[in-house]
């Protein structure tokens, strides 16, 4: 684990896969807690549940800012407490804009126009452009220094498959991050994953750790 997590610097932007507990790279988040990097900006759909994983990273004061679409959960006590105390910065991003900002970062697109958020608080201070008779706002790519991903299968080249709704943000996190770390439920030999079934090609992945984590639980 220590090798997998090496090189993560203070002040990093960390992108997390997962939607609730499904597809969330819990072992790598624990590894990041042990690794010690601080002053982090974390982008994820949610802002942690209970006191484990991301919530623990925040509770330890290691997260300066969270970028997410939906900070509420069944037990958001850690985030709520830090937010009310002014000890964590929050950037709320519509869920599709969050995913597209990651995809854009991975695709070399520095910014893009979208109709999502036009005429709302999300548009305040953003560049507007009318294209083809409709109004759009400019959103910037969200690049990760580090991306933490959970996959169903991985091989030595970093080719990944995902299970059911566990795919969610993981493929865009992988492509958007300079250093993409993967925890995989199953590690396969090269060639064992049918090339037609590879969802994330290995070029987007830097390190794979075999973590037979089991089923997700806790939302």
């Amino acid at each position, binding site marked *: 684990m220590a090798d997998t997590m090496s090189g993560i610097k203070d002040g990093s932007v960390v992108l997390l896969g997962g*939607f*609730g507990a*499904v*597809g969330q790279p819990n072992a790598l988040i624990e590894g990041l807690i042990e690794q010690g990097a601080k002053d982090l900006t974390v982008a994820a*759909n949610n*802002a942690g549940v209970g006191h484990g994983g991301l919530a623990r990273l925040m509770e330890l004061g290691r997260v300066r800012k969270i970028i997410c*679409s*939906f*900070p*509420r959960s069944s037990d*958001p006590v850690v*985030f*709520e407490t830090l*937010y*009310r105390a002014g000890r964590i910065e*929050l950037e*709320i*991003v*519509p*869920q*599709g*804009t969050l*995913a*597209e900002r*990651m*995809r854009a970062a991975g695709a070399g697109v520095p910014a893009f126009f*979208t*109709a*999502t*958020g*036009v*005429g*709302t*608080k*999300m548009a305040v201070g953003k560049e507007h452009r009318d294209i083809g008779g409709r109004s759009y706002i400019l959103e910037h790519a969200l690049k990760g220094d580090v991306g933490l991903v959970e996959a169903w299968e991985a091989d030595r080249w970093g080719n990944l498959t*995902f*299970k*059911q*709704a*566990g*795919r*969610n*943000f*993981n*493929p*865009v996190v992988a492509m958007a991050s300079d250093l993409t770390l993967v925890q995989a439920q199953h590690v396969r030999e090269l060639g064992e994953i049918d090339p037609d079934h590879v*969802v994330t090609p290995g070029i987007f992945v830097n390190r794979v750790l075999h973590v037979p984590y089991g*089923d*997700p*639980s806790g*939302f």
Partner: protein
Amino acid sequence: MSATTAAFKPFTRQQMAQRAAADIPEGWYVNLGIGIPTLVADYVPMDREVIFHSENGILGMGPAPEPDKIEPWLINAGKQYVTLRTGGSYCHHADSFAIIRGGHLDLCVLGAFQVADNGDIANWATSDTDSAPAVGGAMDLAAGARRLWVLMEHTAKDGTPKLVTRCTYPLTAPGAVKRIYTNLATIDVTERGFAVLDIVPGLSLDDLQARTEAKLHLPG
């Protein structure tokens, strides 16, 4: 209160969902929001092929599983266990929101705090100083789906109208709503404003107007 109104019964949540489901035709791709809209799927007849989408990367989502058939990796956007219909598929979040933002969904049904008679919808925050605002995919759905219908109670619990001339809560999207199904009526958003399609039996248009801030019209 008039004699006609004394007899009326507001729709239950199930009846509201059933009323909206009746208007969804064969072949539509539909996203249902959290809350009452989720119930709509239960009232689409099995022989009518309507394909449900969930923001977290599911196309062809089926109903909740039997308790002994739960797939721990198969949840919907409301983080409830669901199933996949035969022919269904999974995609990642950027593709799932390309489905939404690229105008590929025929319909999205959302709940709301307020809808204005110009189609503005407010459904994600009840003040500008919410302690932890949470937008999720609501803005993408409201701006991106080809049609947006709202399924909500006609008034707030204290009787305050939710169909208004101008939303006072933060907007989710301007001018997006096409139709509203409430526990009292079905209302289209038109160039003239709110047009009443039907009202629960026993309630008069005047009495519906009394529970509605914006002016109600009859269609045409």
